[in-house]
């Protein structure tokens, strides 16, 4: 039972990875699933630094991007020379590149933790991103480097032309990488990463070099980021300088933070959610990056532990069978929350239209499929009323949640152990 209990989440996850493309069958969703799977690897590799070792990096895309570029050059070399190397092996090349650059840059940046480390990571990120624009032969300038994954040697008859085949390739790598990264957290080294995160000085007085722990964590994190980058390369069949820059580094930070750096599962949740929002929001609104920024600020202010911590808070309530008691309070609070968010979205969309698009496309727009004029006062006033009214109402209804929590916890305490 115990062994099965431990394996259950992994089996469930494997099943989920296997059936997902049959639930979401469109081409877009399958592409999105592929991006989610590789983003999970990327975010977890980032969390080896942030959550496990306490290193806040602003330049993690360097290892993702360099892994991707080396992988795409490797693919082109394989195609050119007609080597009998199939596509599934390519992430090993990207991973090796990520590891190599992790070792090189890690030896410089992991001497110190804290702000010094963060600033060096930012500097290295900028250095590599700007070099990428100069070294055109390797990085391909603004156009990037392209490849054709189906021209590599077939792997048991698969040529990885269709998206579904690529998805399964990425999903397999995703599963293996998650398993490996999880296993690392449960080794002597993984535990010392936590110790160094908690108190690097004390770790030195029990025999461990905090710098060496940080360096190994950084190098391994580069390895997995490189694998993620090479999966991106074979998924998109193009790598450009964007994937190496600050935006990509910011995105992985966002995924990890929103999902929750304190738990292993947090970055997985974050990668899935942020990838979903990234793909869908960018189709719906021009201001999608603003929403990302707001989401980040809201999470930092109200739930700094991320979604995972928020879910973990509910675990004892769920175990105590009291989750149902929270639901009425949540339902009541959902109403003003939705009104407030709707008002906020309306404000942002009106502002986006008025400031960006009205000049060329005129003031007539539609938000939530409702036609409106961004020059008229009415939609603006409605937006402000919805937002402020929702916020004020939420302030009034929030004590209901606190009361419900208090009642649920009291009941659990009363239960016999």
């Amino acid at each position, binding site marked *: 039972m115990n062994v099965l209990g431990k394996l259950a989440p992994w089996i469930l996850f494997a099943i989920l990875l296997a059936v997902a493309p049959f639930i979401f069958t469109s081409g877009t969703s399958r592409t999105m699933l592929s991006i989610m799977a590789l983003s999970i690897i990327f975010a977890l590799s980032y969390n080896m630094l942030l959550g496990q070792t306490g290193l806040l990096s602003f330049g993690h895309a360097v290892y993702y991007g360099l892994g991707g570029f080396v992988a795409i050059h490797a693919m082109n070399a394989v195609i050119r020379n007609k080597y009998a190397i199939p596509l599934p092996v390519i992430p090993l090349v990207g991973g090796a590149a990520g590891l190599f650059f992790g070792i090189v840059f890690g030896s410089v940046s992991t001497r110190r933790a804290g702000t010094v480390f963060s600033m060096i990571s930012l500097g290295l990120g900028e250095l590599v991103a700007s070099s990428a624009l100069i070294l055109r032969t390797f990085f391909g300038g603004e156009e990037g480097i392209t490849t054709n994954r189906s021209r590599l040697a077939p792997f048991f008859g698969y040529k990885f032309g269709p998206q579904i085949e690529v998805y399964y390739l990425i999903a397999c790598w995703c599963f293996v990488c998650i398993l490996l990264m999880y296993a690392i957290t449960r*080794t002597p080294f993984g*535990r*010392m990463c936590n110790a160094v995160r*908690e108190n690097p000085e*004390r770790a030195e*007085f*029990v*025999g461990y070099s905090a710098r*060496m722990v940080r360096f190994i964590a950084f190098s391994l994190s580069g390895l997995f980021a490189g694998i993620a980058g090479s999966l991106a390369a074979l998924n998109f069949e193009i790598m450009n300088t964007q994937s190496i820059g600050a935006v990509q580094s910011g995105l992985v930070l966002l995924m990890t933070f929103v999902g929750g750096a304190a738990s292993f599962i947090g970055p997985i949740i974050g990668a899935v959610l942020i990838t979903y929002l990234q793909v869908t929001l960018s189709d719906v609104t021009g201001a999608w990056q603003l929403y990302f920024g707001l989401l980040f600020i809201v999470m930092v202010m109200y739930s700094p532990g991320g979604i995972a911590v928020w879910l973990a808070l509910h675990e004892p309530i769920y175990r105590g069978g009291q989750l149902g008691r929270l639901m009425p309070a949540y339902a009541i609070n959902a109403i003003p929350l939705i009104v407030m968010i709707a008002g906020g979205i309306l404000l942002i969309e009106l502002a986006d239209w008025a400031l960006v698009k009205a000049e060329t496309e005129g003031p007539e727009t539609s938000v939530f499929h409702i036609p409106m004029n961004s020059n008229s006062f009415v939609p603006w006033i409605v937006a402000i009323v919805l937002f402020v009214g929702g916020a004020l109402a939420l302030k009034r209804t929030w004590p209901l949640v606190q009361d419900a929590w208090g009642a649920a916890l009291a009941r659990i305490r009363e239960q016999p152990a």
Partner: protein
Amino acid sequence: MTALSLQNVTKSFGQMEIIRGVTLDVPQGERHAVIGPNGAGKSTLFNLISGRFPISAGSIRLEDQEISGLRPYEINRRGLSRSFQVTNIFPRLSVYENIRCAVLWSLGYKYSFWRGVNGLADARERSEDIMERIGLAARRRDQAGVLTYAEQRALEIGITIAGGARVILLDEPMAGMSRSETEHAVALVRKVTEGKTLLMVEHDMGVVFGLADRISVLVYGKIIASDTPQRIRENAAVKEAYLGEEAH
């Protein structure tokens, strides 16, 4: 054999000389206390011996090996471990994790990331044993940060001795404790340092005179006397510089 030997150790911060030529030999198995007024340099001396700060001049030898200039982890690996005046634990790790992190290196697991930590029977047994000895076995799952002050002090000692160091430095292990907590802590220190060399800084004179085989008095960065508790109690210079009425 001399477990710890300091020869003419000095330490300056800028123009200010905090430790002014300390010479001290601690034989193996001795319980040696360093006392002195506030600002005498006791904690600085500990920081020098344990490698937290580099010395300005002199020599520090651990079991006849020079250790000055080494990093704290290198000194720890050679068999010297220390505790801190201000509790210095891993606050968000469990009590068990705190102790286990402190035993891993000494058992040879180093930076290994290819074998599971939970399957290491020797690390588990040693950690269990330490938790029993410091009286925290019942709190093994609790986060170290939520323990009471006295429990955190016990954990601090547990982390210090877990690696099996032969020379133990305890920096004010009884600081901030009530009378009953102190009695308990003295018994604990006595028990866990059995057969080891102990160098401790402590302000509680009752503790010092009860526990130490020998006492050194540090005043303004210099050792003015180093002798048995009885003789220290009778030493006129010590009385004048520091002990006063406290020794009675």
